[in-house]
């Protein structure tokens, strides 16, 4: 039997009939076609499916859709401005060549947006810890950290050795 759930996804109110066993990852991908939400493991190990639920990042593969009743969901599709403007986190990922295969990218960008929303700044070491729930096999994290430092890091005083 399907169950009815109400949630706001990327600013749009949705009333959906879902399987109560369904994960938010499955609902977003399969019912709303939000394919920026990637499945890398399905069990909360890789962070590729990260989305925001009421302003907090979660692994959507571990989050039952039924829990989202009445909540606000934000995915990378929801970051794009009316005329296609990019979020500063997205722009920083482009400028710093933090994108390679692109599969971990949407999840990391959501974590970046969460950090920006916190209104504070972070050291590189703090950022390492804060993104350690996101696995990336292409970049060695170097340029991802550079991109995040650009938007939430402290102003650079000297070149890194």
């Amino acid at each position: 039997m399907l169950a009815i759930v109400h949630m706001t996804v990327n600013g749009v109110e949705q009333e959906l009939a879902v399987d109560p066993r369904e994960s938010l990852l499955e609902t977003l991908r399969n019912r709303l076609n939000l394919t920026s939400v990637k499945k890398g493991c399905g069990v909360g190990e890789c962070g590729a499916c990260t989305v925001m639920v009421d302003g907090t990042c979660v692994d959507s593969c571990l989050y039952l859709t039924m829990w989202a009743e009445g909540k606000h969901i934000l995915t990378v599709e929801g970051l794009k401005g009316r005329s296609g403007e990019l979020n500063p986190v997205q722009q920083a990922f482009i400028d710093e060549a933090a994108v390679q295969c692109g599969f971990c990218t949407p999840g990391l960008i959501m974590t970046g947006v969460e950090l920006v929303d916190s209104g504070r700044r972070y050291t590189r070491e703090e950022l390492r810890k804060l993104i350690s729930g996101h696995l990336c096999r292409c970049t060695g994290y170097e340029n991802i950290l550079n991109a995040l430092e650009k938007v939430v890091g402290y102003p650079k005083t000297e070149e890194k050795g």
Partner: protein
Amino acid sequence: MEVVGKSMKRVDAYGKVTGEAKYANDLCPKDALIGHVVHAAIANGEVVSIDISEAEKVPGVVKIVTCFDVPDIQFPTAGHPWSVEEAHQDIADRKLLTRRVRLYGDEIAAIVGVDNVACERAERLLKIEYKEYPTFTEPEDALKPDATPLHPDLRPTNLLVHTSFKSKDFDYEKAKEEAIKKYGAAHVHEVEGEYQTPRISHCHLEPCTSWAYVDVNGKVTVTASTQIPHIMRRVIAQALGWPVGRVRVIKPYIGGGFGNKQDILYEPLNAYLSIVCGGRPVSMDMSREECISQTRTRHAIHAKTRALYTTDGKLLAREIDALANKGAYASHGHAVAAGSMGVYRNLYHDEYGSRADISTVYTNCAPGGAMRAYGVPQAVWFADCQVDDICHKEGFDPLRFRMDNCVGAGFSDPANGITYYSYSMKECMKKGAEYIHWDEKRKAYADQTGPIRHGVGMSIFLYKVGVYPISLETSSARMVLNQDGSIQVELGATEIGQGADTVFTQMAAETTGITPDRVYIVSTQDTDLAPFDTGSYASRQSFVTGKAVKKCALELRNRILDYASYMLKLPVSELMIHDNNICERIPLDGAEVQTDLSAGNGYGYIPDGSRDENGVYRDWLGADMKKWDIDDLPSGKWSILRDTGKIFARPGKVLLSLKDLAETAFYSLDRSEHITAEVTNHCKENTFASGCTFADITVDMRYGKVRIDHLVNVHDSGTLLNPQLAEAQVHGGMAMGIGYALTEELLYNEKGRPLNNNLLDFKIPTAMDVPDLKAIFLEMDDPMGPYGNKALGEPPIISVAPAIRNAILNATGVSMDRIPMTQQRLVAAFREHGLI
């Protein structure tokens, strides 16, 4: 060069940061059925029977096929170009589903259902009877006389292939006698060492995935996450017994491959499941667990080595005997092991020569296949553990020893003629040593005691570009002019995250004279549309496909100029394309020709075929090359004259916009012409890339904890096509190298069951495990590369693990023989040495 060599932003970056770039599963129709593989619950044996009667009744189950139903066809899976010579063809040891179980989880049946729940419920109701044989996951056990042969139809024992390479008339004992005669017994020393590398998983972030349906034209159409769409098409046809033309493969964006997707995985089965379900779309989206234990791995290799050297630090002879763990199926066969041994031998020069023997052996575990750098990380682990063990024993400086004994300028591999043209191995070492402060640190880190110790270590590598002449290197390209003067570039080569689409765009822009914003590369390869190319592997595309792109761009340029000549009533020789315009061509005087005369070490080379019968230098692609008299070049140096359309001329007055030309060409009532170019480039060139890693580390002896303080890779990859992307590529390889060194290993229990096939227990590095990564490049223009470039995709991983190992040796005096150097292994080793 105006476009090549610049850090242009990735052409796919916008699509990827917005999540709009579509990957294989993103394109799967929502009504697709689910294809679910039933995995064997034993590691070695036979399926006696499968009773599907109860399972079939589960609501939502559409079809169940078992190993007793599939066509009796064996096919190979390696992502190699097909060989027309039977002896060189890949080993056909797979069926779509197998009755003979050769590894835990082998594919014995498949269930097609409306969702995963239906398939999993049905699986639980299958009644499967097995006949079980003893399990062997190590080659040593698989070679014992009582071990059941896994593929008796192909091999009488579990030995797949044994290869022996050696220098002419080389014999280690004879070399020893001669060396003692020459240098005196007191001056000839020897080390023996035994080294091991682990089986690891690629762990690309996108799991292996595909979906298939039969199109209205009767073609089975498979959309797959693959590095090799054209090869996949051929293998699916072989597996089904269908003609190649009835198979279509579509490759959209993919989430990394690292060699795992240079193999054919569930795609033929996926095609088959759709066919037996009346052509309905069927999706096969592997779980991460399947992706680690049921696809491919890097080969675990176990090697015994000996080396002979003089007490003043000259290598005399080396030999190695190795066993490579093939796993249950041939996959890439013996190619990985053979390639590995070549680099072990070539990396250093031995006065009396060397010998390498390696056996590839079938076992009951996941098949070894291609993985980033294809056997070379193992080779360099063996060679550079050995070198540092020599240096440690004798008190030699490892940097000095490598400078004295490493592969030299002008080296040519006697086995295949591959020649090291733009040589800078020693310069790479020099740069790395400077960056890490080698001399100061080796001094500062001498004679440490206590729980916290520091060390510096290094390792070097050599890597060929593509597979010529061992195998075929061919690539084709198509360019089509649009009405607005922009072009499409269509290739069979694949973007897999490395940035291929971006550098191909740069190449096409560079050579046509059309600006990169007007070059539209078609990222998706559809085998019905994309020209033929074997795909992304062997760090070949920027070199091999790059030549096809350049050749095609030259041809397109000539066709455009031919039309311009018609419109302007001027000879082609007076025209050139620059910045989307047809301009006057102002030839440069000889004196103004820009050439690179700064070859390293005073060594020069003019490539074969570069001089015509009159002694005139020509670009090997031949087209429209200004002639240059070779005798005018300074002797003892080389000169690279590469026609990019601009070197020999500069643009003058604008005569016509490309847009006006294109519009006229399309719609002229006098001469309508759709300007396109399509070429094949059969690449018969190769060269070596090289480089090194230096690591500065801290070891906490109590916990066996290694902290990497500084890590630097120095690469000689020729001219960089896009420095920012090149650097990013190196970072990724370095991080992968850290995982290889310290944490990654796919483990099995004694029954052959995988123990850690998930991302929690198979430890790839997180952002907290990786230090700031430094990449340094020595940009030597290589005469073989289409734009002076050579391999970069795979090399960054090669020398990281041995550099870290040698830094641990420097810090602690303990020689680790086996990767990964986990905390447990380090603590055990420190205990054994009485250090803790």
